[in-house]
């Protein structure tokens, strides 16, 4: 069941949550909406679900116009950040709920309900806890119940609103992998909202990056990471250093240094920003060309496989963050206060309009 979103607009008073958003979600894909708070991703999800009406624009499920359809008729499964389990019902009854409230003529017999529910509980590995109350379960278990409950009515679309946001880091990682495996098995068109880029990149078939009510880029995780379309995307994914300078015929001048920007060969004296990822920085004790930036080491954080260096550029006092592999770091024997030269190995330049 594919989803087509066209020209959605939604305002809350003066605040524009969604500004002419259009999106295609192919059937069977797991798509994530990624962005900072206030970017509109949750609003978009809720409008797709029918929990919120859009001001203008349309939603189509597999070509059928569902813009005006009430939520209970959309056959979507919705998983909330804080689970929204029915506290007074057992795990079993929670999962069975959607089946029990079906109209008489569509309701499956009790035996079938039981089979479906237990099957789903087995899928989410909670069959033993079927008679427990939500209050007796951990956060991760509760979210699995919420997932099973949403799947019980065989939704055409599964929508998840920051499903792992309320869980601690380790549980989050486990459930992330688990969601991916579940999707491989069940293959429901799924859209989930997150502000955690690692989560989005790891789990989804496609990532949609949103900012201030607009879609910045939509593509596979590799695409958005390696070929970010806008400065926002570049800055949002991964840690990055910004250098302000002037762009002229394929070269960016940043103070005394010059960086290569061959894709801007035609540019004529424009203001520009050069984006350099923190691990795309090479450390040398002596300068090696115009791209070598002179800096002093302010802080060294040597834990884990990468060493984090906070450097201060000599020329203008700007901070540069570099993540270098441990081996390199130890080879150069860098200490605090030392003067070093850093050279970007990969640069992305965006001209400022």
């Amino acid at each position, binding site marked *: 069941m594919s989803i087509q979103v066209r020209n959605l607009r939604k305002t*809350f008073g003066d605040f524009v*949550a969604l500004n002419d958003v259009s999106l295609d979600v192919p059937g069977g894909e797991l798509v994530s909406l990624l962005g*900072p*708070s*206030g970017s*509109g991703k*949750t*609003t978009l999800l*809720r409008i797709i679900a*029918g*929990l*919120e*009406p859009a001001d203008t624009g349309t939603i189509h499920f597999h070509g059928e116009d569902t813009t005006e359809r*009430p*939520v209970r008729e959309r056959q979507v499964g919705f998983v909330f*950040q804080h689970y929204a389990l029915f506290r007074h019902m057992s795990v079993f009854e929670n999962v069975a709920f959607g089946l029990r409230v079906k109209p008489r003529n569509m309701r499956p017999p009790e035996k079938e309900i039981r089979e479906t529910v237990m099957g789903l509980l087995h899928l989410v590995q909670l069959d033993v806890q079927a008679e427990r109350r939500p209050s007796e379960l951990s956060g991760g278990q509760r979210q699995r119940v919420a997932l099973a409950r949403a799947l019980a009515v065989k939704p055409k679309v599964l929508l998840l609103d920051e499903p792992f*946001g309320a869980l601690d880091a380790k549980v989050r990682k486990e459930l992330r992998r688990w969601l991916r495996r579940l999707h491989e098995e069940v293959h429901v068109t799924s859209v989930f909202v997150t*502000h*955690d*880029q690692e989560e989005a990149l790891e789990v989804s078939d496609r990532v949609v990056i949103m900012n201030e009510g607009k879609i910045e880029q939509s593509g596979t995780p590799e695409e958005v990471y390696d070929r970010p379309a806008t400065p926002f995307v570049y*800055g*949002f994914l*991964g*840690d990055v250093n910004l250098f302000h300078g002037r762009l002229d015929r394929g070269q960016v001048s940043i103070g005394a240094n010059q960086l290569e920007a061959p894709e801007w060969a035609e540019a004529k004296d424009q203001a520009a920003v050069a984006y350099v990822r923190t691990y795309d920085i090479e450390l040398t004790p002596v300068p090696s060309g115009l791209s070598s930036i002179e800096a002093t080491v302010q802080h060294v954080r040597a834990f884990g496989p990468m060493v984090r260096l906070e450097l201060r550029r000599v020329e203008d006092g700007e901070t540069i963050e570099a993540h270098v592999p441990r081996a390199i770091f130890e080879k150069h024997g860098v200490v605090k206060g030392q003067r070093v030269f850093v050279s970007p190995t990969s640069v992305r330049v965006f001209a400022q309009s």
Partner: protein
Amino acid sequence: MATAVLPRSATTAPRAVVRATGESRTVRWILIAIALGFLSLVLLVPLLLVFVQALSKGLPAYWEAIKEPDALSAAKLTLLIAAIAVPANLIFGVAAAWCISKFAFRGKHLLITLIDLPFAVSPVISGMIFVLLFGAHGWFGPWLAEHDIKVIFAIPGMVLATTFVTAPFIARELIPLMQEQGTEEEEAAIVLGAGGWQTFFRVTLPNIKWGLLYGLILCNARAMGEFGAVSVVSGHIRGETNTLPLHVEILYNEYAFAASFAVASVLTLLALVTLALKTLVEWQQRRAMSDAAEVFTTPERIAA
């Protein structure tokens, strides 16, 4: 890269807006109509009736009824009783809340239940027990008669009965409030060298001021309006042992309806003022709490 999580309300509509999961417009308005209809019938109509009846003989008669000497002395007595009962219960309430919320000791739950007792006792029984204690045939009856002290069918008895009935009000307000606030601030004050009373007046009191005010308003309203308990212990002597509510009853039983409602209207106005003050204090309480929530990020205050 920042991963600040804003509260959901920043991105979702305020609750008042029609939600996708609400009732249809028609159902809503039908329910509102039934609810308001019920409330009008039960609350509003009797309220209006009081004032209409009070003025049914015209404004001059209204003033007459209120300025009448017996009415005035009833008013004075009502104020006197409240002036004694409320402060007494204030001291009791504060003392009880202090020891219950700042200290751990056995029997605390029992104490809390005992404080709630007057609420469970019918007003008439509340009066009756003092008759049993201080009446002519009561425990202290003979002794009082000997010393020519009148408690029952006199003002002291009425004060006692009113105090009994209104005893829990302030305590019940303060106990959960102070339990929630915990002991940290007081302990900090002590560590900084403050004395006991200083700590109470400078640290505790400002924190509980709204709850205290709320309890005072309720306690006062009940003290002035109490009827059943006071009726039992009063001598029903016009001009001497009648409070305003009792005076209302006397006038009514004498078929002086307009006058009765005139006095009743004074009490009703008092009730409306009480409601207004109560709402104001609640509003202030809520503001104070949300302000505090902004300043402190983890209000994890566990009761002692």
